[in-house]
């Protein structure tokens, strides 16, 4: 029981820090509202889709920016998608990185775009790491016989 208590506290502290540091925004809370006994893995499923989708997008972006003649419309389309998906799961810092990125696309500023790609990639891997940690904590709580605290 003590273990569960400790894990639960760890979970809550960690979750709070994610919101405080801007990694996640309110949309992540909205996702959790959509999870229930009939769909107990909803959040993990959606986030997994986000991971898959993002890694494809990041690769596509890298390739698009490496072309002899860069198609900025195509780059922008990818960033738009990335912005959308990160917004949909509440990955705030990734979403914000995409906003700046789109501006450089509009200006057809290659250097700006390259920098933004690095920034977006960095933010993505940070939040991925955080979310994986969060899910691991959840699993540990459940494995120890506890329930995952709901943060509103």
């Amino acid at each position: 029981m003590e273990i569960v208590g400790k894990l639960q506290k760890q979970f809550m502290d960690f979750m709070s820090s994610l919101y405080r540091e801007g990694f996640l925004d309110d949309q992540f809370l909205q996702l959790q509202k959509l999870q229930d006994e009939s769909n107990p893995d909803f959040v993990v499923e959606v986030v997994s889709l986000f991971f898959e989708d993002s890694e494809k997008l990041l690769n596509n972006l890298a390739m698009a920016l490496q072309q002899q003649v860069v198609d900025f419309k195509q780059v922008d389309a990818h960033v738009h998608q990335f912005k959308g998906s990160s917004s949909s799961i509440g990955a705030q810092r990734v979403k914000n990185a995409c906003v700046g990125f789109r501006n450089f696309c509009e200006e057809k500023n290659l250097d700006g775009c390259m920098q933004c790609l690095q920034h977006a990639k960095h933010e993505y891997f940070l939040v991925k790491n955080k979310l994986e940690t969060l899910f691991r904590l959840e699993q540990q709580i459940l494995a120890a016989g506890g329930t995952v605290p709901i943060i509103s």
Partner: protein
Amino acid sequence: MGMAAADLQFHVLAVDDSLIDRKLIERLFKISSCQVTTVESGSKALEFLGLQQEHDEQNNPNQPCVSPSNQQEVEVNLIITDYCMPGMTGYDLLKKIKESSSLRNIPVVIMSSENVPSRISRCLEEGAEEFFLKPVRLSDVNKLRPHMKKTKCKSHKQVEPEIIVTEENQESIEIAHVVPSQPPQTESDTVQQQQSQANSNNKRKAMEENLSPDRTRPRFSSLTTAL
């Protein structure tokens, strides 16, 4: 699939090119007790709705564009579509739906990640019931509930199933058989125009109180008989 079950459930067609967003919107409506079909494009949506594309319209410009051979009794009570999609945009889809005599009475809701006032008013003018900014939340979908409850109070003769339907949706399907066309919504002050629409719809609701709310049946079957 029992007929009774189909009667009780509100069927939503969700259109979005993003897999993540399709999953989200599906869950939002399912958690609100709706049946949901998701498709990834406007053309797939039209296919699902039984609306064949250009070739039918060229042959029979005045006839409803419904293909009887592969027409299932597809009952769709709401179409919610993303605005930005490759190929056919949500706006293009909206137009095609409103141009179709068989589909124009299905309420359409547009979603967009971008808050562009001119885009919003264009969609509303073309006949969209609502315009939601993404990410769409449970509270957006729930906003449809009060309209449904008002409808329940007024149509107290029949036991109304627990379904999500906006007051506008309810009317647009009922009115289809009586009143030729609805005036388009032209207000473009706010994005979520629930209040103003609810107010203007109260007047229409008062007129239509005598209509038997046989909303889920007639649309397709009456068309096939007409053909």
